[in-house]
């Protein structure tokens, strides 16, 4: 898993998610099958289950939205534990929850087995517009630096006795954010100068071309192919 070329994995995750979202929501079994498929791949990739499940937490804000649906949606209602719930709302919530979770789970698996750097190479290989790849790789390079600058500014504020306690202090924080923006902008200009000095003419040369063999493509195709089969079964057995 870890050794597979990043662009193959990206395509595989995309296809898997497409298969999941085009499955009818009533085919409950199909979603269980998807979850099992993913779990099998996680096992194969030797990603610890705890890490995998733990990272699913980023989905929580969307779950909150799904939980609201049965209460606010229209349509025939069902009684459950003294609560009046909308039936289409329940199906809607299930739909969002199941498909969302599977999508996030697949992406988490991709992230756990692929370095960010490799992901960028994969996107580059998949002919994503180079500007987007450049922006993402600069974020990767300078993210730490900007966080560090932010931390230093916070220390400087705190050293002079400042503590953000309420709305009245938002002005100071806003000014810090502004200063941070200006600093980053100026750094951007200096970086651009340094790039020009080394022969930059608008495109970053492709230094590492990632390639994939037929066998690697075939291996990455297993998951989306299985998902497609489940999806078709879901439609046929409805």
């Amino acid at each position, binding site marked *: 898993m870890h050794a597979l070329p990043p662009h193959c994995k990206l395509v595989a995750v995309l296809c898997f998610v497409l298969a999941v979202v085009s499955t009818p929501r009533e085919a409950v079994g199909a979603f269980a099958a998807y979850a099992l498929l993913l779990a099998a791949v996680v096992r194969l990739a030797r990603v610890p289950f705890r890490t995998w499940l733990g990272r699913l937490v980023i989905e929580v804000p969307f779950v909150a939205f799904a939980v609201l649906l049965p209460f606010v949606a229209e349509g025939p209602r069902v009684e459950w534990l003294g609560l009046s719930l909308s039936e289409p709302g329940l199906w809607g919530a299930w739909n969002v929850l199941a498909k969302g979770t599977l999508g996030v789970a697949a992406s988490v698996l991709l992230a756990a087995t692929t370095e960010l*750097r490799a992901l*960028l190479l994969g996107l580059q290989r998949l002919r994503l517009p180079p500007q987007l790849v450049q922006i993402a*790789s*600069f974020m*990767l*390079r300078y993210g*730490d*630096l900007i966080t560090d600058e932010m931390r230093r500014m916070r220390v400087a504020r705190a050293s002079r006795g400042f503590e953000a306690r309420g709305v009245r202090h938002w002005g100071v924080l806003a000014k810090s954010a502004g200063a941070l923006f200006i600093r980053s902008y100026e*750094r951007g200009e*200096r*970086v651009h*100068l*340094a*790039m*020009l*000095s*080394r*022969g*930059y*003419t608008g495109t*970053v*040369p*492709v*230094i*590492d071309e990632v390639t994939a063999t037929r066998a690697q493509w075939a291996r990455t195709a297993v998951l989306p192919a299985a998902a497609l089969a489940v999806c078709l079964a879901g439609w046929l057995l409805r």
Partner: protein
Amino acid sequence: MSPPEPGPPAPAAPPSLEVRGLAYAYPDGHQALFGVDLTVPRGERVALLGPNGAGKTTLALHLNGILAPGAGTVAVAGLPVDRAHLAEVRRMVGIVFQDPDDQLFMPTVREDVAFGPAAAGLRGAELEARVRDALTRVGMEAYAERPPHHLSFGQRRRVAVATVLATRPEILVLDEPSSNLDPASRRELATILRDLDLTVLMVTHDLPYALELCPRSVVLSDGVIAADGATRDLLCDEELMRAHRLELPFGFDPRSVRVPGT
């Protein structure tokens, strides 16, 4: 049989850098340079000294055509710095900027060092060899796959030097190479620079470092070259130093220092 006729003497290699009457005013009207003349012969290491705001960095940015002169000319190894030769000139002039975080913009050290030669069209094994060679010259070959932000400041500065060495420059231009370095990193960088065997123009106000590395110095003050001579002579000229806000660190006596390699 008569001995063969001696041929005409081989033409001397053009100087690595030749600046003639260079004047420049920023778009906001602030005039930074008023007719700078400077020649750096091949293989020489020259320090460009001057107080803050003397126009040192402005001058450096003219050397590879980032800024276009208002008047005067710049030539690198005989090649005029103008629009037609920009790509070639930027390959030949390796500028090492003051902040290595500005200079190292790629995700890993190896890719960063490869950037210059790759932009010039180099690929494959030749590119790899170039990268390895440049990193070896600064003693950083073991860090090729690291992201730059995981290196110490001194290491980043050395990688920054490697990024321009990789393009096989005619002249290395260093902007404040010793700034923010601890004494050990300072010494390591000095050793590396001395062993490079390359034309070097070192922009600095670190006078001991200039004395240690550069036999010759020029003083840039108020946009003109105010003095040009042997580094030790300039540093010993107290009046000159005072006139241009150049000050030796406390307790440093340029007369008593033995410069390595002389």
